[in-house]
C-alpha cells in the first residue's frame, strides 16, 4: 500500500467515523463539532484527488462559515433534548422512508453504473507547478457565466430572506441608535451659539481689600 493510499484510508475512515458520531452523539454542540471534523477530513480526501481549490474552499466556506452559524444556533438556543425526542417513534417511519429515497437517489447518480475507474478514468497526477484553481476558473467565468450569475441571484435571495426572517428593528424606546454620520457632520454652529453680551463690570471690591491688606 502506498503512502497516499494510507492517507486516503485514514481520511476516509475519520470522515465516516465522524459522520457516524455526528448523528449518534446526544449533545448537539458535540454533533456540530463532529460534523466539522467530517468536513475537514473530506477536504483532505479532495486534496488527495488533486482538487486543491475545492478542498480549501470546503474548509473556508463550510468549516469557516456555515458551521460557525450552526454552532451559534445550536449553542445559544438551549434546546430541550427531552422535548425534541418526544415524537421520535411517531416520525421514525417517515424518516426511514426519506432516508431510503435519498439513498436511492444517490445510488442512481453515483452507483456502480456511473462510478469506477472504467467510467471516470484514472485521475491524472500533476507536477508541483500545476494550478488547479486556474483550471476551474477559466471555464467558470466564460463557458458557465450564466450559471455563475444565477449563483449571484441565489445569494441575493439569500440576503433578502435572511433579513426578512430575522430582522426586527426595535422601537426608539427600547434601543438607542447612534447616527455616526450625523455626529461627524455636526458643526460647531449647530450646537453652539455665540451670544454677544455687554461685559458686566462688577464694582471692584476684592482688589481694593487686598490693596488695603497689603498696605497694612
Amino acid at each position: 500500500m502506498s503512502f497516499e493510499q494510507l492517507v486516503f484510508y485514514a481520511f476516509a475512515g475519520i470522515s465516516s467515523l465522524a459522520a457516524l458520531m455526528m448523528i449518534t452523539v446526544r449533545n448537539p454542540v458535540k454533533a456540530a463539532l463532529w460534523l466539522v471534523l467530517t468536513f475537514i477530513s473530506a477536504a483532505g480526501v479532495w486534496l488527495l484527488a488533486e482538487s486543491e481549490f475545492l478542498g480549501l474552499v470546503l474548509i473556508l466556506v463550510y468549516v469557516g462559515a456555515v458551521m460557525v452559524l450552526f454552532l451559534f444556533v445550536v449553542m445559544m438556543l438551549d434546546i430541550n433534548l427531552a422535548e425534541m425526542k418526544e415524537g421520535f417513534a411517531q416520525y421514525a417511519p417517515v424518516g426511514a422512508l426519506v432516508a431510503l429515497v435519498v439513498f436511492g437517489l444517490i445510488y442512481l447518480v453515483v452507483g456502480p453504473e456511473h462510478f469506477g475507474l472504467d467510467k471516470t478514468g484514472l485521475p491524472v497526477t500533476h507536477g508541483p507547478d500545476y494550478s488547479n484553481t486556474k483550471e476551474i476558473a477559466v471555464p467558470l467565468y466564460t463557458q458557465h457565466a450564466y450559471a455563475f450569475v444565477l449563483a449571484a441571484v441565489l445569494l441575493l435571495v439569500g440576503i433578502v430572506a435572511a433579513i426578512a426572517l430575522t430582522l426586527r428593528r426595535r422601537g426608539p424606546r427600547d434601543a438607542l441608535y447612534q447616527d455616526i454620520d450625523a455626529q461627524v457632520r455636526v458643526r460647531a454652529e449647530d450646537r453652539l451659539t455665540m451670544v454677544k453680551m455687554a461685559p458686566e463690570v462688577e464694582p471692584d471690591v476684592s482688589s481694593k481689600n487686598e490693596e488695603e491688606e497689603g498696605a497694612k
Partner: protein
Amino acid sequence: MFETLQHWLSTWMWDWLAVLITILIQAVVIILPLMLVVAYLTYAERKVIAYMQVRMGPNRVGPYGLLQPIADAVKLLFKEVVLPSQSNIYLFLIAPVLAIAPAIAVWAAIPFAEGWVVADIDAGVLYVLAISSITVYGVVVSGWASNSKYAFLGALRSSAQKISYEIAMGFALVTVLMVADTMNLTQIVEGQKGGIWHWYLIPLLPMFVVYFISGVAETNRAPFDIAEGESEIVAGFHVEYSGMAFAVFFLAEYAMMILISYMTAIMFLGGWWSPFEGIPVLETLFAWVPGFWWLALKVAFLLFTFLWFRATFPRYRYDQLMRLGWKVFIPLTIVWVFVVMLLHYYKVGPWFN
C-alpha cells in the same frame, strides 16, 4: 540545504523516512523560533507599552528583565489546570487545541525568503485564509464549554467580530490577487521585485490599511479587544482557563499576530525585497543584507505598530466596531475591487504585465 540533507539521509535509510525526517526538521526550524518570537513579543509588548507610559516595564528577571518570558512560562507550567465543575470537560480541553493547531499549521505555507518555504502550494493565500478561519472555533467552543457568563459573552462578541472582519480581509486579498495574478505567496513577492514603487502597497494603499486593521481586529487586539475587555467581562472567552491551558490560548493569539504581520509584509510591503532596490547608491550599500532580514525587519515594524495601537487608542464600543467593519471596510473593499478591475482593463501602472 534541506535537499542535501534529504539526499544524505536517503543513502542509508528508507526514502519515506528521509522525507519525513527532513520535513520534521524543517518544522522544528520554523516552530521553535516562532515560539521564541512569541515569548519575546510578550516581553516587547510590556517593555514598549511601559516606555510609552513612562514606566520601566519588567526589569527584575535577568538583565533588563530579558528572562521574564521564560520565568512566566515556567510559572504557568507549574500552575494548576483548573477544570470547572459545570463545564463540558472534553470540549473545555479541546478548545485550546482548536485555537493553536491552525495557528501553527498556517506556517507551513509561509515563505521566509526566496525559496525558503516548506510547502510551496499553488493556492497559498486561500490556504492561509481557510486555515486561519478555523481559529474561531477555539473561541466559540471555549466560551460555550466553560459554562460561565463572562466566557459566553466574550465568545459571542469575539466570534461575531472575527467573522465580520474576515470578509473585509478576504476582499482585500482579492485585490492583491488581481494585481499579482497568482495565489502562490512566493510568486506574489516575486511580482513586487524591482524597487519600492513596484510594491503592491502603492496601487492598493487603502487595501493595505483595511487588511492590517482587520488583522488587528481578527486577533482581538486593542483597540478592538472587546472580547477581552477586562473592565467589562474580565477576560472574555478564556476566563475559566488557567495554567498551561491558558498559555496555549495566549500562544495562539500571538502566533496569529505574527502571521498577520507576515502576510501584510509579504503582500503589500514587498516581502524579502530590499526597499532600496533600484536606488543607485543605497542599493549597493545594503546589498549584503540577506532578504530574510528585510522581511524580518518589516514584520518587526508591523508588530511594533500592534503594540503602538494598544498604547495609543481607547477601546472601541461594539456598535462602532461593527459599523467600521460592515459600513466602512466592506464598501471600501468592494469599490476597490472595481477600481483594480478598471486599472487592469486599461493596463495602468507598472503592476500589470
